[in-house]
């Protein structure tokens, strides 16, 4: 059978050591770690848009960086098109980078201020020695057109600081697409842009997805955007996936209290009249509690939640939730729409 999965993530973990003061090191306290990503597994099918949703610090961006190998995983496995890329290095990794790319959140920081737009987009072709000089220039010009920067000749010689945020993000997309990757990680690509421009960029990305047969891992904190583009959603909290499922399942019948809280706190007119209000803020990921990580803030908590970390409960072939109290939630929130 043909493999329909482009990315498989198994038990992926990333721990960052905590910077300690000189005094602490002298007293040789044991090293502490931030559990940025803590044992997550999922896979992404060819051609789909997979959304990773969560608040800041939940590990969603770290997950994206790990998959495109900008960070070294602590543990677990990343399989890309059947190849284990978890620990590949050097030339092998450098060559493979053509296939998977990432679009960063901050278009003001992701472009080299000392390079012209044309050079920025052409550079990946130079690096991988694709085409002749003339061909590369042609390719860049057509790419500029593809991302909606007209007239391309004019943009070719500009510098990043002469462009608006939206235009810069288009340049960043073009830079990534000249290599004709199969798979793209989009790390909150619109969160720093004006609202009226955001949709332009998202629509452009969806357009390009169809034209170039791309697969996306789309990372966002905005459930609104996720609801417009994704096929499947995973919700992360403190380094863990707490709920994963098809778009209709997670949005329509969310079963994790955190998902419900996120969905119902979106400002503006409400889909359902009521809100699930939760207290407090995301705690730091250094001292992870033994039981459920959401325990301290959860309105549905029971005794067991403090002692036992919930495992995934399978609600359908595709919908999984890590919570001890699904029945109760089902009763209170039968459906959101």
């Amino acid at each position, binding site marked *: 059978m043909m493999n329909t999965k482009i990315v498989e993530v198994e038990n992926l973990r990333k721990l960052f050591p905590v910077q300690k003061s000189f005094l602490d090191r002298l007293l040789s306290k044991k090293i502490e770690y931030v559990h940025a990503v803590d044992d997550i597994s999922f896979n992404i099918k060819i051609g789909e848009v997979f959304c990773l949703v969560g608040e800041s610090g939940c590990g969603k961006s770290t997950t994206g960086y790990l998959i495109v190998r900008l960070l070294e995983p602590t543990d677990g496995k990343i399989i890309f098109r059947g190849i284990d890329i978890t620990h590949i290095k050097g030339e092998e990794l450098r060559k493979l980078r053509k296939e998977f790319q990432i679009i960063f959140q901050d278009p003001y920081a992701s472009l080299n201020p000392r390079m012209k737009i044309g050079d920025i987009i052409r550079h990946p072709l130079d690096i991988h020695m694709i085409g002749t000089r003339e061909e590369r220039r042609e390719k860049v010009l057509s790419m500029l057109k593809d991302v909606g920067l007209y007239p391309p000749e004019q943009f070719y010689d500009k510098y990043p600081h002469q462009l608006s945020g939206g235009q810069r993000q288009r340049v960043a997309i073009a830079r990534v697409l000249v290599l004709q990757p199969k798979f793209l990680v989009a790390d909150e690509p619109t969160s720093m842009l*004006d609202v009226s421009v955001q949709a332009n960029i998202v629509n452009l990305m969806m357009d390009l997805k169809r034209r170039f047969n791309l697969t996306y891992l789309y990372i966002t904190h905005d459930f609104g*955007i996720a609801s417009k583009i994704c096929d499947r959603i995973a919700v992360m909290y403190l380094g863990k996936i707490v709920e994963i499922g098809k778009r209709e399942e997670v949005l329509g019948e969310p079963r994790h209290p955190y998902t419900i809280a996120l969905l119902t706190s979106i400002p503006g*007119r409400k889909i359902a009249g009521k809100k699930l209000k939760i207290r407090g*803020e995301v705690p730091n990921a250094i001292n992870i509690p033994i039981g459920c990580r959401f325990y301290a803030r959860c309105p549905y908590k029971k005794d067991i939640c403090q002692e036992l970390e919930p495992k995934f409960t399978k609600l359908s072939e595709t919908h999984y939730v890590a919570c001890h109290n699904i029945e109760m939630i089902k009763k209170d929130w039968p459906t959101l729409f």
Partner: protein
Amino acid sequence: MTNQELLSIKNLSVVYNTTRGRLIAIDNFSLGLSEGEIISVVGESGSGKSTLGYAILRILPPNGKIVNGEIHFNGINIIQLSEKELRELRGKKISMIFQDPMTSLDPLMRIGDQIVETILEHEKMDKEEAWNIGANLLESLRIDSERMYDFPHQLSGGMRQRIVIALAIVLNPKVVIADEPTTGLDVIVQYQILDLLKRLRDERKISIIFITHDLGLAYDISDRIAVMYAGKLVELAEKNKLFDRPLHPYTQGLLKSIPELSIDSKNLVSIPGYPPDMVTPPRGCRFHPRCPIAMSLCRQKEPKLIEVEKNHYVRCFRSGEVAFK
């Protein structure tokens, strides 16, 4: 607008001198704020919304200048006040909450000391008394008064913003200007901050000017919404009216471009183009290059702000026609 306006801005214009030339950040802007009212000023980058807050408190950067207009607070014209009188006004009558809480907090001082210092700058009392006022205030905002002993870096982002809010209201001001106070906070915490601001209005009758780029947030918190585009007020109405019947094409576009959570629709609408460069804004109506229903008149003449129905003001020649579907 009502007669009992607490703060009224008339024909305000603010100009910045930049390296690239003169930039009109706010152009002939008028707005009235009643007691206990929350008005949101919504706009994108370069709309002039933040400048508005700075102008009201007269804390514009050195290259910014109010070139025209009046700002009346309780009958006094703020524009004519001396620096000494302004110090009396700031904090005590009108105060401001900034986007980044760390700009308002001193990283080297305990929260409690900062509150005490703020109080003592304006009131004569001893330190202990001021400390107690601070502790009581925090409790009334449902913040643990133990936080008084913390330094800013020991607090989470949301807690810091709550402390900033407490600092802003400790002298019982009548008006609070909140400049994107929830940007950078997560949705859930954002909600908690909105709740806190609403409680200030309900319990202390504080009027709030809520500056934001997010129409959804504006809807949740405010009574009326003012939409700004490129330095101009383009639409002003009660929030439900604005949401039900937006009359300016820009407001329509902005409303449509909020990616609303839904299962049925995968449609994302956007406004073409980008906000204009404010040094060289387009002639005529400033929105015309991005407007789908612009006509030749829009390219030549600037529309006036007119009251198309009661308390609903729009600046558009074709107000009411639908531009974005």
